[in-house]
């Protein structure tokens, strides 16, 4: 690829295993690798920051600094923001193509892989990927799937502030208790870590997955429009709005050097030169900054740590360059602030260091925690926490639940993540039905629910009816994407070819999805007779037959269409299964079985 500029040609060949450290950011992404004891940043058109922007041109995706002279409104920005909402939602919808957040991110990951391979002059699949500490499990697995589809073998998912602290620990030999204040384009994280010789341990973490530097730009734009044009930003057409916000972003960056800026701003009907004072910027971002400070205070409280015993605060993320942030933190906490490692690059750097140690061995230990509590819904729509937030990972916990109605033969298990007591205020990760319980009086069955949260922060849930020994009878599972477990098996085991071939990965994913769907329907066949008309049953069976034929072929699109058909046809039925006779709630907990 002649588009790529190689800054350091002729890298020495060595026996060390290479592993990319990828910081996939809301605004910019950074990729680096440790070679010959040095961290080298993979450059995109001579730039270390690769804008996380995608542009589709006749099916082909342009990414990052490749994009030149395109209308701003045709670009896809901030795709990472969609992951906390739903990574599978369509975010690009045109006649030519429909793309989900995962698809769009996949383009960025593919591009990163491509420029890295061009630079290193070798194939590279291994990477350590960073995510905001406060990302929930859906967002984490979404990012992982996206990188997987781009051909990566994600060796670890680590939290951004943890990666940064690791870099400070190794590079700057920092030892003691440190806060990492990480303000990215779209997310805010704070972590409290203990750094000692050979052990880098996260004690607790807090944050807001929807608060970032991008919000500062919008707030600043609002203030400017109000101050100089007496206009609301919301009254401005979308295209122009993006332009104005981008302009305000660059003004914000210029305030790093100046206190007053004369700038001409165009709001459609009028263009005017305005003289902006730095105070206006400071005032407009005060509220979200105060919010981050409250989050830091809450974390310290929760960890039972007094600020006076903290040795320093590390600033991470491009947005922390704003002077007012540093000032406010010093004013509030009276603490030493460190930003000597580039806040834009330090996360990727830490990830590359960790990736290197993972593959080549090391005495260092990186211990992290889960940011959000995990549990299930119990009677009355309340959340029963099984793994509380700030538990060290990996974590396996089991708890016994029972039924609350006589002769109940199935229960619905709703998996939740969050800190609130009421289910509806938390994030529902998944739901499944455990059926085929032996009918018994209420309170007698013992259903063991096991939560296993692995070191990447990915959750696996299983349930066993202890009396029948029936395990994992997952009859209806709402989430039918390729599961992380299957994905990992693909990468590590027999499908060696799939490592290379993206199309093959997509085909395998589709086939797994289809097979799973057929199995799920087969499992509930007895109920189909009761809940569906014979017409409906016939249609469903026909599609399954067609699907089985197509599964022998390699026609991904056809299989996908059949999956859509089948999902559509079984939608009513699936809802009926969930609604019908079954009591919706798992009964009250009867005892706790923390394995120790």
């Amino acid at each position, binding site marked *: 690829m002649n588009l790529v500029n190689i800054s350091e040609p002729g890298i020495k060949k060595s026996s060390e295993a290479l592993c990319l450290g990828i910081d996939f950011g809301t605004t910019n992404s950074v990729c680096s690798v440790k070679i010959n004891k040095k961290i080298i940043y993979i450059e995109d058109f001579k730039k270390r920051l690769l804008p996380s922007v995608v542009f589709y041109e006749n099916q082909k995706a342009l990414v990052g600094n490749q994009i030149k002279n395109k209308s701003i409104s045709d670009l896809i920005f901030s795709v990472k923001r969609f992951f906390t909402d739903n990574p599978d939602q369509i975010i690009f919808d045109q006649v030519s193509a429909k793309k989900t957040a995962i698809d769009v991110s996949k383009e960025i990951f593919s591009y990163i892989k491509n420029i890295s391979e061009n630079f290193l002059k070798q194939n590279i699949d291994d990477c350590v990927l960073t995510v905001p500490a406060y990302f929930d499990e859906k967002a984490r697995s979404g990012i992982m799937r996206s990188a997987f589809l781009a051909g990566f073998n994600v*060796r*670890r998912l680590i939290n951004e502030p943890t990666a940064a602290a690791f870099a400070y620990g190794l590079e700057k030999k920092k030892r003691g208790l440190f806060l990492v204040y990480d303000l990215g384009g779209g997310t805010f994280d704070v972590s409290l870590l203990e750094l000692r010789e*050979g*052990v880098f341990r996260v004690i607790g973490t807090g944050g807001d997955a929807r608060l970032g530097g991008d919000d500062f730009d919008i707030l600043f734009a609002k203030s400017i429009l109000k101050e100089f044009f007496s206009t609301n930003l919301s009254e401005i057409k979308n295209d122009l709005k993006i332009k104005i916000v981008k302009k305000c972003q660059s003004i914000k960056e210029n305030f790093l050097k100046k206190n007053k800026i004369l700038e001409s701003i165009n709001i459609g009907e009028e263009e005017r030169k305005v003289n902006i004072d730095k105070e206006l910027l400071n005032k407009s971002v005060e509220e979200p900054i105060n919010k981050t400070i409250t989050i830091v205070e809450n974390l310290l*409280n929760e960890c*039972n740590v007094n600020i006076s015993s903290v040795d320093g605060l590390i600033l991470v993320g491009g947005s922390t360059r704003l002077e007012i942030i540093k000032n406010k933190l010093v004013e509030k906490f009276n603490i030493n602030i460190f930003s000597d490692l580039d806040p834009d690059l330090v996360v990727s750097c830490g990830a590359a260091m960790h990736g290197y*140690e*993972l*593959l080549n061995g090391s*005495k260092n*230990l*990186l*211990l992290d925690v889960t940011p959000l509590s995990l549990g299930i819904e119990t009677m009355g729509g309340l959340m029963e926490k099984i793994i509380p937030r700030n*538990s*060290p*990972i*990996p*974590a*396996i*916990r089991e708890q016994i639940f029972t039924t609350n109605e006589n002769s109940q033969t199935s229960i619905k298990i709703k998996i939740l993540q969050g800190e609130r007591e009421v289910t509806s205020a938390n994030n529902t990760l998944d739901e499944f039905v455990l059926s085929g319980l032996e009918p018994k009086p209420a309170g007698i069955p013992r259903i063991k629910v096991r939560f*296993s949260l*692995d*070191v990447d922060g990915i959750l696996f849930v299983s349930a066993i009816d202890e009396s029948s020994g029936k395990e994992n009878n997952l009859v209806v599972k709402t989430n039918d994407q390729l599961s992380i477990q299957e994905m990992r098996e693909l990468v*590590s085991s027999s499908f060696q070819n799939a490592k290379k071939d993206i199309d093959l990965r997509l085909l395998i994913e589709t086939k797994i999805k289809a097979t799973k769907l057929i199995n799920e329907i087969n499992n509930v066949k007895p109920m189909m007779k009761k809940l569906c008309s014979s017409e409906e049953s016939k249609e469903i069976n026909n599609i399954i037959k067609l699907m089985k034929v197509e599964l022998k072929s390699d026609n991904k699109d056809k299989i996908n269409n059949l999956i859509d058909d089948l999902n559509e046809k079984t939608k009513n039925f699936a809802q009926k299964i969930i609604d019908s006779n079954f009591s919706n709630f798992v009964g009250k907990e009867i*005892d706790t079985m*923390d*394995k*120790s």
Partner: protein
Amino acid sequence: MTSSKNCWSCNKTIGYKDLVCKACGVLQKPVELNPFDVFSLAKKFEINKKILEDKYFKLQSLLHPDKFINASQEEKHFSNVHTSLVNNAFKILGDDVSRIKALLEYSGYQISENESFQDVSVLEEIMELQNMSMSVESESEKKKIQSHLKVKIKKEIKKISQFFNEKKYKDVHNSCIKLSYLQKININLK
């Protein structure tokens, strides 16, 4: 208790509690252990947190999934389970109330589900502290209650230690309930 087992990988006879096979170096299947046994610590109430922490890090360095990145699926799985068990045991031993409960359980004392106060005067004492902590108005008032609580917690821990020595498990349990309330009030004060 069995004192030996066979390595799942090379089938050589090794110690029951061995984490790694001495012959082939492969990580062994986790066995169910009491939290004290996880760290090879004496089963008593008093604990040296520094030693516990050192042992925790040592076990983590041996068992953590990061150390098994290129290992077989089995070893990866075992590493995940081992590390979780170590994490849970560390949490239990690091916290006074859960360590007391683990010790009571080990001593064969049945902990009833009902965690209420046997003694009305204790209940009244807790209620009063609770009310005081809820109506705190100034920082100095808060500090006063905090130091008051600190003394009470210390006193209760001393009592518990003594009850354990005298094998008065019922008294241990009652004091432990009181201790857990005192700690809750203390945390909520912040």
